[in-house]
């Protein structure tokens, strides 16, 4: 059985998106690509979940969007983190680390 792309653990998509957006304004396609690349192609975000997630985060005021010229091609919608988003990202990361180390402890016992 070869290594296959892993499905996202429930509830982690928001965290990944926030983290990716935190590195600077980026559009939807870029987010998907960056997650894929930084996870060494382990995590593939489905477009079907990405865009609703982006819209949800935007409605909650965690990220903001603006239309900009992209390098090539049509105008793109660039997302960036709001202040509330930064706070949330810190909290979520904190939580995730505690969670994963707890899981690790159990698995290694």
């Amino acid at each position, binding site marked *: 059985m070869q290594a296959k792309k892993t499905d996202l653990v429930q509830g982690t998509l928001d965290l990944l998106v926030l983290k990716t957006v935190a590195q600077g304004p980026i559009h939807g*396609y870029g987010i998907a690509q960056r997650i894929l690349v930084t996870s060494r192609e382990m995590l593939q975000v489905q*477009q079907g979940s990405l865009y*609703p997630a982006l819209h949800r985060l935007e409605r909650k005021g965690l990220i903001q969007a603006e239309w900009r010229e992209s390098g090539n*091609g*049509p105008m*793109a*919608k660039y997302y960036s983190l709001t202040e509330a988003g930064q706070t949330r990202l810190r909290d979520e990361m904190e939580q995730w680390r505690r969670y994963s180390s707890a899981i690790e402890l159990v698995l290694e016992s």
Partner: protein
Amino acid sequence: MRFPWTREESDLDREIQHHLHHLTAEFARQGHSQEEARRLAHRAFGHSDLVKEQCRDESRWAWLSGLRQDATFGLRIMRKSPVVTTAAILSLALGIGANTAIVSLMDAVLWRDLPVPEPRQLVLVNWWAPEYPREVAGGGRGSARREDGGMLADFFSFPSFEKMRDGLTGRASLTAYTIPQQASISYDGRPNVAQVRAVAGNFFSTLGTSPRLGRLLHDNDEAAGGPVSIVVSHRFWTRTLGGREEAIGRPLAINGQTCVVGGVLDPSFFGLLPGDNTEIYVAMAPGMRILDPGNDSLTNARFWGFSLLARLASGETAEQVRPVMQAIFVSSWSARMTYAAKEPRIRLEDGSSGLGSLRREFRNPLLVLGGLVGLLLVIACVNIANLLLARATARRREFAMRISLGCSRMRLIRQLLTESTLLALAGGASSVVVAYITAGMLGEFIAERGALPVTVTLDIRLLAVAGITTGAALLLFGLFPAWRGTRLGAASWLKEGPGSIGHAARRKWNAGRLLLLAQVAMSVVLVMTAIVFTRNLKSIETTDPGFDRRNLVMFGIRPGTSGYTGEQLPPFYQTLERRLAEVAGVSHVGLAGTKPMDLGGWWMQSGLAGETEDHQSFINGVTPTYLQIYTPRMVAGRNISMLDIANDAKVAVISEDLARQFGGGGLLGRTLEFRDGPNRTLSGQRIIVGIAPAIAVSSLKERPFTVWVPLDSKSSHATVVLRTTRPPAQVLPAIHEAVARMDRGLPLVEVITMEEQIAKILQRERMFATLCGGFGILALLLTVVGLYGVMAYNMSRRSQEIGVRLALGALPNDVLVMVLREGLLLAAAGMATGVPLVWLGAKYVEKELYEMKPLEPLSFALTLGVLLAASLFAAGLPALRASRLQPLQTLRQE
């Protein structure tokens, strides 16, 4: 125009396009052709509509665009069934509109505060005594009513008022007013009549009213010398004074005495009670000089003719002030009373909404009307609920389809609620129109006929309350069908469908039928009320007054207020009668002290001297020809004669029915006594000289015992009654001319024919009958619509079943009878439920009826007959249509 949600929509599109663009580029880089790359990109992205749909659900405007969809869809549904929609909107509009109009009327009469600052501080001052306090009070003028086994009266002597006013300084401001009197006025050289009320100088300052123009009265106006300043109502100013500002400072003569228009009241000040018709206010001292000349009414402690109103200082309560007033009141009497128990005692009453007489009189009738119109609204709501329910059931297949395609039940319910909200909005908007028209008509109806002299204005706040209540009710009623209509196993409905045989028959008493039953039951109440009050009016109108009411005309004449005094009056009346008799077209002329058929009048207990038996009788002073107007002959004895009048002879003619009470024969020459009050104090004696036929004298509703006495020819006013040989309208110009030839400055007060006068005193009954009739017709209409709707809808559901029946050999007649029986059974069940409701409500209307029980068999029969006919009609159409179904067609339909 770009709304936030449409912008979001196009943004979403562009965002997805952008993503696809990158994906395509990516695939192209991997070496696919441009065509292939685009195809792969689309495949990798997945179903873009699904993504969009999910994004929309996350959107801030999701609910709004959903609402827009619901509304668009709702509007389409409404357009698709115009009958249901129109019926529902009409029901709502009529229900809310009628309610708002009636509640506006109730508000004007029952609840509205006086338009003055801090009305809660106002108290009305009354006294209560077990009987009229003769020892301290001579004459009285004001209103009194029976209460707690004694009398409650609102009149005081002026000296009592002055002492109480001074004694209460600092604790309350006390003011006095009199009953308005009709007086002859002259402005700009034109004679007219007006209602004049004399009030204490502090009247307006106590009330806290402000003028529209000029100034109101103050204490200085009581002082003698200088021109007499008067204040006029806004209505009088616009109607009689031409509504010009120059009217201020101009002369206006009251009873020949020159006064000056000092100020105009604000239009919001309607007077001391709803429907107060006072047009001119004048200060007490000059006022009594003009209205009541030659009397010492302001200094006589035995003349009780002034009503009191107080404004309590802040911090004072009625309970604290009352004992102080009582002590001063007792000390102000001309004598001490022998029995302390019989002393009048002060009672204070809330005065925030002015005098209470109109409220007391119309409270019950208005509450009955309010109840009826409320019932009408309930019927309207039930009707709508029923229509919505029927429609929801008819759309079950659509719902089942949507649910099986993944639509949530909440979403369906929301859709249905949106539809009922749309209906509520449309109904609410049209109800504003209906309410506006109805309130206007009601106000005009009331103002024109004088049934209830108030101005009814549509109160927007009331309309809002009615609208919100109904909107809430409608949502509730809409929720029920929505909840029911969507509660279904989708599969079973798709499978079974509406055409399955026996489906409708399986559930005999579904919610729609129960609602309809309730509706019919409530209609029974409304239709019955309409019939009872219409019959009531007819029965009063057709009562025989004992004389021919056609070709009779009358008017008031007030020589005493137009410069004629004492000795000039008898010859004046004599000449007037003679001149009028000479007018072509006049067959009889007579004068009377009290206007006939005008309710009220002069009433006394009358009995034979030496016998204790006595009867309440209507007394009227008349000329010899007066009785001949009504009836050509005497029963026995002689008529009043001119000599009796000239000599002020103490004689009397009694009515035949009174004579019968006294034993019939041998009455001529005996002495008749007038007695007064609970102690039967003797207040006059008369020799009986004749017996006249009994006729109706004060109203059609009663035929009181009557005593005719010679006219008081020195009275300041009299009523002239004429019998004409042609319709009165043709003779009136000549009558006006004849009076003008005697004295150009003498107004004819309120010229009116007997038929108009009778109609006028029946206004209240007519208003009631008209309104109840209107409600009844509306209820009937709504019920017909409801029944028709439910039956027609049931038939459409059962068309297959009926088709099968017909195909298997049932005759069209059998189908007709079957459907009719179903509809009529439903109506009959409703009627049976309604009858106990009528029985429960009967006691509330009993007081408003004349010689009629609320529950007469004939009224019942008529009610049930009308409803039965209506149901036959409502069920007949669908039944007829069902019986004419073509079996083959219906079977092929599904």
